């Protein structure tokens, strides 16, 4: 369960970061962000979608996200979690004050995502692109004393996505909307996944303040054979599903630099933490 849920966290995380992908950067332009991401949960969605308790576990990471325009049609994307901390609280008896289970933490590099995005076509109101992201198993898939403090899933996956974006006006105010649908081809007997998401955003105060709402979903195709009966008692992640909602607020401190804070939470799911995640970061716009 532990790794399953950890992976689902990382999955939510990657959905969140990759949602920047629909608008391509122009040649020589870029978007770079240094972020911290945090989630702590004492309950989770089970494989039947109901909520069960668990010892409080948390995960924190520091990461770099970057998107750079090789040309007007080609962008490269990287998500690098260079510090990931996975931890569990101490379990202490409230009757005797004795420690029932020692807490633990494990730190390491996390799983990276490296991708490339290509502009399919663009009209005055619509933009379409496709992207291929490679999930590099650069994290540790068996961290901690019992192997449950993973900072990666140990498998190499490939995500092919189609992205669409548009801008429109509502009550004389400009907004944008993005959506994507993708297929995640997973290895090592993990089930493949369909991923989709939408995002709506707008800006205020001469584009200094950006406000956006997003929703992502992951549906497992349940075609992977990995389960507890064939993993020799080890911990694994498979058939993770969720629908999440969230938002982000960004404030441009200068024309090139700004800060942002975000929130995401699964509103339904299977084998995923039932708790919100938070992120905060500093971004830099290369123009």
């Amino acid at each position, binding site marked *: *369960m*532990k*790794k*399953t849920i950890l992976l689902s966290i990382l999955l939510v995380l990657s959905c969140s970061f990759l949602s920047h992908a629909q608008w391509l950067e122009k040649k020589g332009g870029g978007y770079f962000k240094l972020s*911290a991401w*945090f989630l*702590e949960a*004492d309950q989770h969605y*089970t*494989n*039947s979608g*109901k*909520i*069960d*308790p*668990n*010892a*409080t*576990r*948390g*995960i*924190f990471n520091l990461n770099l996200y970057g998107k750079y325009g090789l040309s007007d049609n080609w962008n490269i994307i990287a998500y690098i979690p260079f510090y990931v*901390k996975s*931890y*569990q*609280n*101490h*379990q*202490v*008896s*409230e*009757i*005797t004050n*004795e420690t*029932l*289970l020692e*807490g*633990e*933490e494990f730190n390491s590099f996390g799983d990276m995502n490296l991708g490339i995005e290509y502009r399919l076509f663009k009209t005055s109101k619509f933009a379409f692109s496709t992207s291929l992201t490679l999930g590099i198993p650069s994290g540790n898939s068996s961290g901690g004393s*019992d192997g*449950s403090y993973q900072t990666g899933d140990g498998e190499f996956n490939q995500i092919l996505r189609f992205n669409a974006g548009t801008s429109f006006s509502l009550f004389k105010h400009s907004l944008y909307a993005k959506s994507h649908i993708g297929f995640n081809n997973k290895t090592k007997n993990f089930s493949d996944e369909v991923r989709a998401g939408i995002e709506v955003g707008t800006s205020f105060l001469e584009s200094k303040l950006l406000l956006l709402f997003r929703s992502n979903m992951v549906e497992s195709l349940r075609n992977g054979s990995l*389960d*507890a*009966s064939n*993993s*020799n*008692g*080890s*911990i*694994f992640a498979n*058939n993770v599903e969720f629908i999440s909602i969230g938002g982000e607020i960004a404030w441009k*401190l*200068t024309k090139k*630099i700004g*800060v942002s804070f975000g929130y995401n939470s699964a509103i339904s799911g299977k*084998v995923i933490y039932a708790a919100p995640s*938070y992120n*905060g970061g*500093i971004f830099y716009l290369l123009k």
Partner: protein
Amino acid sequence: MKKTILILVCFLPVFSCVKTDLINDRVDPKLFISNPLLELKKGGTAHQFEVNYFNYVGKKIENPKVSWSSSDSSVLAITEDGLATGVDFGTATVTATLTTKEEQLTITNSDIVKVSSATLTESIEFLGTIVTTSNYELEGSYTLKVHEDENNVLRLSLGEDYKASTSLPGLYIYLGNNPNSVADAYEIGPVTIFEGAHFYDLPSTISIYDYSYILYWCKPFGVKVGEGQIQ
């Protein structure tokens, strides 16, 4: 700008510390006669009754202060230390009584003994059901029995009707006396069979009276998934 970054960097790690979860692991204390008799020989060798006592958090307490009594001392006589002798043919109830130190609760356990021409120990087996205590599938019948024909091995057998979710990795099975904690429990091992009959042979150091719960535990998350009461 620099100040904003500094505040952010200093503030964020505060969230990610290993903190403490408080667990309410109180249980009702339990007292068992650990070597009950079916029959005691009249005028034969005296039988030393013994008990297992598990306190308010299910911890085994060695040498508890127990008082012993017989319902009919003209049939079965028993000393304050639990040494019983068959006096005359008939039936008597032996009762162990203990008042707990911590909560001043009085708990008892009894054994009905027939005084006859031979001494017979009880051949005990516990039958019960494993039930889920979570939203993961886990169910089945069990038998806990000393197999006298196999070198007195204590065996926990799960029935054909046993079924556990394969979506629940990190599942371990324990014997314990506190359903809210496995801190003092005996870890049998990881669960590797998820359907159908199977069994676990337990070490000779474990008595059939040592534990009152079979616990299925998600070990990494420190949470109970299911249990079977041994009664």
